[in-house]
């Protein structure tokens, strides 16, 4: 074939930061016995496990925000004992009978489930923050890089529908490299499905808060993560459509170090605020209060 018929798109387009190519911090942390000590991937400081955990998994020296599991995120954000899981019974299947490098997707799912103790990359449910109710969906990067397949799409959609049904705000915490290849176009279509549900939520006047954590890229960033009435991000997270390496490859030039980070998207008007993890719960509570009281005053006024 003549190569003039081949567009000049870099090979890793949309997915240069795909979960399967991003080194997992969780894995390196686990390599040390009992989390006694953890090395900060940013400043290389050796952190005592207990101090680090008490500090919400943030490096006390440089402020690096380590990735949280869905369970840790729930503990961080919600009033104790208020979380009730939704759609916990959903499990992934292998609709394409996908095989890569002689491993079937089915076998990979079993591996990942055993390794993470999760059934899928999203945990959905309801809970309260400072007494105010919300529906939420949290992505867990440990499970195939938080990638979005049919189950993730369905759980997030159900959380939105719960918000719509009960007229309570919706929070989605993103941590994902994008759509999951092994479910092919079914994964891509989850972007449309979730966005359509959000359109209904928006029409019904129910607020949606999007929280971007490290990393939020690809199809997740190009759909629901970017559709919040308010969009927040944790500091220093990788955020963007394409990974920085893909952008660099495409541009044929070295790019500034902060390209496609929280700070970059804030500077370009794509999000409302960068919030340190220790202020996250208070910030969400403030937003929930503001939305809550807006509705009431409108009725009274």
């Amino acid at each position, binding site marked *: 074939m003549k190569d003039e018929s081949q567009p000049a798109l870099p090979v890793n387009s949309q997915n240069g930061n795909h979960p399967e190519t991003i080194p997992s911090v969780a894995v390196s942390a686990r390599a040390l016995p009992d989390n006694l000590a953890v090395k900060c991937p940013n400043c290389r400081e050796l952190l005592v496990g207990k101090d680090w955990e008490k500090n919400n998994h943030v490096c006390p020296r440089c402020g690096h925000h380590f990735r949280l599991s869905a369970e840790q995120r729930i503990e961080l954000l919600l009033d104790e004992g208020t979380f009730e899981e939704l759609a916990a019974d959903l499990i992934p299947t292998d609709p*394409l009978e996908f095989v890569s490098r002689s491993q079937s997707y089915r076998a990979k799912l079993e591996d990942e489930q055993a390794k993470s103790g999760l059934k899928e990359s999203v945990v959905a449910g309801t809970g309260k923050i400072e007494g105010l109710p919300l529906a939420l969906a949290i992505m867990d990067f440990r499970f195939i890089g938080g990638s979005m397949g049919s189950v993730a799409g369905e759980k997030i959609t159900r959380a939105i529908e719960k918000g719509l049904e009960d007229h309570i705000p919706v929070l989605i915490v993103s941590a994902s490299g994008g759509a999951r290849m092994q479910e092919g176009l079914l994964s891509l279509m989850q972007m449309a499905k979730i966005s359509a549900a959000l359109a209904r939520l928006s029409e019904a006047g129910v607020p949606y808060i999007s929280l971007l954590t490290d990393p939020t890229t690809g199809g997740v960033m190009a759909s629901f993560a970017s559709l919040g009435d308010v969009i927040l991000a944790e500091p220093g997270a990788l955020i963007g459509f394409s990974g920085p390496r893909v952008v660099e490859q495409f541009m044929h030039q070295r790019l500034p170090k902060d390209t496609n980070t929280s700070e970059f998207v804030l500077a370009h008007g794509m999000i409302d605020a960068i919030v340190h993890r220790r202020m996250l719960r208070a910030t969400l509570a403030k937003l929930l209060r503001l939305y809550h009281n807006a509705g009431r005053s409108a009725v009274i006024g």
Partner: protein
Amino acid sequence: MAYDLEFERPLAELDKRIQGLQRKGDRLKADERAQLRSLEQQLEERTRQIYGNLTRWQRVQVARHRDRPYTNDYIKLICDDYFEMRGDRRYGDDRAIQGGMASIDGKTVFILGHQKGRDLKEKTECSFGLTHPEGCRKALRMMREAERFHMPVITFIDTQGASPGLEDEQRGISQAIAENLEVMPRLHTPILSIVIGEGGSGGALAFGVADRILMLENAIYMVASPEAAASILWRDSAFASHAAEAMRITAPDLLELGLIEQIIPEPVGGAHRNHLEMAETLKAAILENLAELERLPMDVLLEKRYQRYRNIGAFATEPVKAGSGSNR
């Protein structure tokens, strides 16, 4: 038109012999004339046979063929009137997306799609069909116009994906795609999408939330290009053909998965062999589908569109063990 794809080699040989004979013109002897007729028949039969049994990877080659008709070719061949609308009214005019108001059989519609570009100059001008944020926003502007005047929207999808440049990130390519995904499900006018070549990732989906999705016989639609998928899952982009097979990206695959409504047959040897015939078939399919969609009351149309997407997904359920999951 040459036969230059690798799997077309037997066709190229037959074609060469045919051309050798044709060059003789009037000097052809009677037996040569018979031979010519037989070769032409063989060529057609072999083409039918080869194109009737394409592998997924071969379909990728056809979908990317440099002579394949593009959005602007179809607009010229299908529409009896056309006014191109340019610019997103915010920053610029993305030539990767082109479209405007058009007339098909006397009926006004909005028609828009990816333009890959034929020669190097045009390719550069329209970024090889890689959408910038402005392309998404221009399309959205046209769709809102269409809604105001009750004109149906027809989109042609033909891209490897959205543009991954620094400026695209700076101007919010994610936001631009996401906004289309949020607006299209609620657009109060019929939307018909046709994958005419390559449908690649979010850069395709941003123009493809529709009441119905049709695909040309040799078009492909995928979550990531086979090269990208191969470099991630096989750690080597040379395995693109494996990825193409595994990802189920062809029109028959996607019809079987229930993700598209209809396959539009291509001329023998692919759409690039006969632009006019392809355009006529496509036009008939467009008119037929629009007529059906326009018969539906708006609330029914919108509810059906919502459910079309709401029901996409393959998963199972498993009994939840008591005490697990909630209230940890």
